């Protein structure tokens, strides 16, 4: 298997991040873990944006990933983190394969609203489920990795941070290849001209379906990692504001590169954390102005700063 420059750079950054984790304070590790987990969900949103669809309900798969990890430990005796994450992905794939049959018939705002509707249906079910803690959710059982049980606290935080980095690296490389592969490029072609794709003998609907299922699996992994990091899941994971947050981060980063969602998620988390810290009553306004500034001055997202710099180097 050959790796290109982007993939090697991603691997080096990942190694640097893992090492950085050993010398960083706990609060920063936690912030980064949550940011990078959410970035995986955002990768799912971006994958769909590239094909011309905006999911307002990606929280559905974030929540499925999180709840499967939580329920696996609580009810089914699955304490291995890797197995629980894999199960979360599997459940998300099954759900996406069913919902995708309906959703991929729709485009534009209809797709957006339907995806939101399914997410809110899950939210409603979870809120009414006493066994799952209703609105409070429930705590995730202590977990192991291949039989090794990290100490709770810093040890556990460090482990989940490393797992998130590694998962992020694998997913980033896969998505990087996916966007250059047949399905990735042709999904962009669907966004640009569905009629032509159809008259090339391809089914835009099935292409979008494959893309939707792939995006769901990535998002579920993000949800599962969040559950492991926070040790808690609740129905808010499927709430519309959570899905809105993912779109916010996607717009912040832009669609230009696989690294953009990771950068945007970190920027978002830092801005939000410090806004809440210093201006607790108006933090939403700060986030609003941040997005406004990005849309006005960097319509292609934060990544356009990097790509501009690169094109400047070439000239």
């Amino acid at each position, binding site marked *: 298997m050959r790796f290109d420059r982007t993939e090697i750079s991603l691997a080096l950054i990942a190694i640097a991040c893992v090492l950085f984790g050993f010398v960083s304070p706990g609060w920063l590790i936690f912030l980064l873990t949550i940011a990078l987990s959410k970035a995986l969900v955002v990768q799912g949103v971006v994958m769909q944006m590239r094909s011309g669809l905006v999911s307002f309900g990606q929280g559905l798969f974030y929540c499925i990933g999180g709840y499967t990890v939580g329920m696996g430990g609580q009810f089914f005796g699955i304490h291995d983190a890797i197995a629980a994450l894999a199960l979360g992905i599997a459940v998300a794939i099954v759900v996406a394969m069913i919902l995708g049959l309906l959703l991929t018939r729709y485009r534009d705002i209809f797709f957006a609203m339907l995806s939101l509707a399914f997410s809110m249906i899950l939210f409603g079910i979870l809120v009414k489920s006493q066994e799952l803690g209703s609105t409070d959710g429930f705590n995730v059982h202590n977990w192991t990795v291949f039989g090794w049980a990290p100490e709770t606290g810093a040890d556990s935080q460090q482990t989940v941070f490393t797992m998130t980095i590694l998962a992020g690296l694998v997913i980033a490389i896969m998505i990087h290849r996916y966007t250059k592969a047949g399905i990735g490029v042709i999904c962009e072609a669907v966004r640009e001209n569905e009629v032509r794709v*159809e008259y090339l003998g391809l089914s835009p609907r099935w292409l979008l379906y494959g893309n939707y299922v792939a995006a769901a699996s990535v998002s579920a992994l993000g949800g599962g990692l969040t559950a492991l990091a926070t040790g808690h899941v609740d129905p808010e994971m499927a709430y519309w504001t959570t899905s809105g947050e993912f779109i916010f981060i996607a717009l912040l980063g832009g669609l230009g590169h696989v690294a953009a969602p990771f950068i945007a998620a970190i920027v978002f988390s830092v801005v939000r954390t410090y806004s809440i810290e210093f201006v607790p009553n108006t933090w939403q306004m700060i986030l609003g102005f941040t997005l406004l500034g990005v849309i006005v001055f960097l319509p292609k997202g934060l990544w356009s700063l990097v790509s501009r710099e690169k094109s400047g180097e070439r000239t």
Partner: protein
Amino acid sequence: MTTILETRSLNKEFGAVIAAKDLDVQVAKGEVVGVIGSNGAGKTTFINMVTGYLKPTRGEILFNGKSILGHSPRAITRAGMARSFQVAQLFPEMSVIDNLIVALAAAESPRPSFLSPLRSDARIARAEEILVEFGIENYRHSKVTAVPQGVRKLVDIAMALIGNPQMLLLDEPTSGVSMDEKTGLMDTVMNAVRQHGVTVLFVEHDMDVVERYVSRVLAFYSGEIIADGKPAAVLADERVRDLVTGHRHTHKKGNGAS
């Protein structure tokens, strides 16, 4: 000769408007058929029905002797009937060569790969050959929105031909193209078509283009075919001159003017 395309009593109604009325058409393998008619005569409706874009109200469509009625455009494309469009249908954010590469990948398999790169060396090399074949190699890296209309038309037709279709339907291949470019464009297209041994049916408003390239003409008027035959005979037909070409067009063989 073997019939490749046949329509039987093909009808299309849009409410009270009859866009196609009992169209019985047979096209033999290897023919180059021109479809003429004024705006609203039902030419594009006919192509849209045959290629699965529109569902006929009544009638039957046979391709290679098999019914394709109700089939999706992609199924019809895969069966061997490709088309181009009046307004070139391209991927506007992509370069000319990338448009061709997407078409090449689509022709190879209906299920694109999840991980192997689309822009493989083999596809790039084949796309380069096509660029040269169509004389558009100077535009390879230009966005399709930034190239002249004639080039866009050629890319559209090249993409349709990439899947090695048995039959190609061209909807006004020279519309929006300057008079000077028309002959060059059609020469390029017809050369490519001959090389691939493709049966062609094309809609055209320019009678000079029709006369020059087709072996048979179908004249449409108000959803009906009012004449079908050799170009000279059809263009000299009094009804065609009255209702389709207008009196301004006089058949060249008659007096050398058009």
